[in-house]
């Protein structure tokens, strides 16, 4: 019932991330705003090359043998099963230092004629997409799970990353995909009494009929 968002004690990897960022940027004087010198950073970047276009390896290969890694425009995408959704997030946060889940969104592939799914993934109507970012490793990872149309439900990531609260509510609001375990799964952008899920492809825009006062009326 309480809909507020509370932040519990931070998991250990976040502390690591902070120290890594501090190491990358030696703290200046405490009183004034500190700055970070360009030359220092260049060295750090050489130590930790930004690997958004890293090879086909990914951290969870042993832990999630069924998950498929796919490279899309130099970005690493992992296709996982719906049951492993929260487990994957937990693993990424606790073991692999993915400090932030930047975004959760969904796609409706109802009318999609040319779908780009890698081999081995059974395409379903909906896809839920989450973007993770690791600050200490300066690396991104995108996770995608297939959600069937007849029972659109995936586990919620709010317990792992509290920041996806709004994002999951938005996906529920616009797509009707339920997030199991979300503490406050309500509409967020649309009015409470709205019928239908606007971003679904079979939900026509401007469905509300225009009615005029005292209409129809014989002239």
């Amino acid at each position: 019932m309480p809909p507020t968002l509370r932040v519990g004690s931070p998991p250990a990897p976040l502390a690591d991330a902070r120290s890594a960022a501090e190491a990358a940027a030696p703290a200046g004087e405490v009183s004034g705003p500190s700055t970070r010198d360009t030359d220092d950073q260049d060295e750090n970047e050489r130590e930790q090359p930004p690997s958004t276009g890293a090879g086909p390896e990914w951290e969870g290969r042993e832990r999630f043998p069924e998950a498929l890694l796919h490279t899309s425009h130099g970005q690493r995408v992992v296709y996982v099963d719906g049951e492993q959704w929260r487990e994957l997030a937990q693993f990424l946060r606790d073991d692999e230092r993915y400090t932030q889940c930047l975004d959760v969104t969904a796609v409706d592939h109802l009318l999609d004629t040319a779908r780009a799914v890698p081999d081995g993934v059974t395409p379903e109507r909906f896809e839920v997409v989450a973007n993770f970012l690791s600050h200490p490793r300066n690396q991104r990872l995108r996770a995608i799970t297939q959600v069937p149309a007849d029972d659109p439900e995936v586990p919620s990531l709010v317990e792992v990353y509290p920041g996806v609260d709004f994002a999951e509510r938005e996906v529920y609001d616009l797509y009707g995909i339920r997030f199991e375990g979300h503490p406050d799964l309500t509409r967020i952008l649309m009015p409470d009494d709205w019928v239908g899920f606007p971003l679904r492809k079979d939900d026509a825009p401007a469905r509300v009929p225009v009615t005029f006062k005292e209409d129809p009326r014989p002239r």
Partner: protein
Amino acid sequence: MMSQRGTELSDADAREEARLEHQTDEGAQEMRPTETPAEQELVVTGMPWPEREGDGDTMIINMGPQHPSTHGVLRIMMELDGELVLRVKPIIGYLHTGMEKTAEELTYVQGATNVTRMDYASPLSNELVYSMAVEQLLDVDDQIPERAQWIRMLLVELNRMSSHLLFQATNGMDIGAVSMMIYGWREREEVLRLLEMITGLRMNHNYIRPGGVAADLPDGWQEATLECCDLVTRGVQEYDELLSTNPIWVERLVGVGKITTDQALALGVTGPILRSTGFPWDLRRAQPYLAYDDVDFDVIYTENGDCFDRYRIRLYEILESIKIVRQCVERMPRGDYRLQDRKVTPPPRARIDESMEALIHHFKLFTEGFKVPPGETYAAVESPRGEIGCYLVSDGTGKPVRLHIRGPSFYNLQSAGPMAEGSLVADAVAIVSSVDPIMGEVDR
């Protein structure tokens, strides 16, 4: 034919919806009281008020959606115990116009006009991230001419200046430094005038487009830009003098709305709020795009994570942006300002009169747009408010299957709750102001 629009709900759909409603807390966006409030005693005489006891006698009040300090149509529900804020819940959606749905009906050429209206205080960041995503899908992101990259960088930084100046103005207004509001708007207007000179519009420019920018820089842009930089530098020094050591300002902001790095990271907070907690993360530096690895600038960060730090970071980031803008003026490379691929960018106006192909290309581009190969991508840049991302899915046709903008304000707004809980009502105003939410981007 109204009857043809939309599909009527079949029985199965109606059942499905009834089931969904049953399974979720449908219809409960609003905050509900923790428990039934005790019956209030009415005090009608001029007698002293009875002393309060902290026995759960709380009150839920609404701030907004029409409130001078909620930056648009944000509604904040607060549960109060006297002056103390116990819970905060932002309620959004008052500016929802379905822009992501609209994007599915627009071609990729038209798309920039749509996204630029999301974060209306920094429209160029939106255009940039959208263009970058489209270019990645087209596989032309490594062919964008150097001059186009630098023009983009120049404009985005000018836009960062105007956006942070807007923050200085509205923040001052919210906290009661009303003269600051006038100064902030004054300098922002100078930047907008410069943007108008370059792009033709003060806001919603539609200037950065897939493939490059819409037009080359006009004559005399260097002088105008440098003049603007001087003006804004002077302005920033003035604000610094006026506010940073002003005892009222300092008392009002220092230690208010504290947030730690761990909280900020967990809540998906990016940008100045994250940097104010001592976490120097800036995409321009960490994952350079455009030509940011080529210019000299500093990432501003502070340690305290309070409202004063957020004010200070945004103030000093204006100076860093000016630094980048000056380097752009000095080192602007020559060359094309957009890709010379006629399938992506239109031919020059003069060519249309003399070349049949140019006419056809022009006509095709502006009627049906260009086709984008199937695929999906996520592009991210550092907007004045944090990481703005664009998740784009194409099925090979001329219109996107899905365009999703990860608005930084949307996520940053969630931090208003933890920041404001336990503070006073008056501080809540300062806290919401320091989050700097742009509702156009929150609601999209």
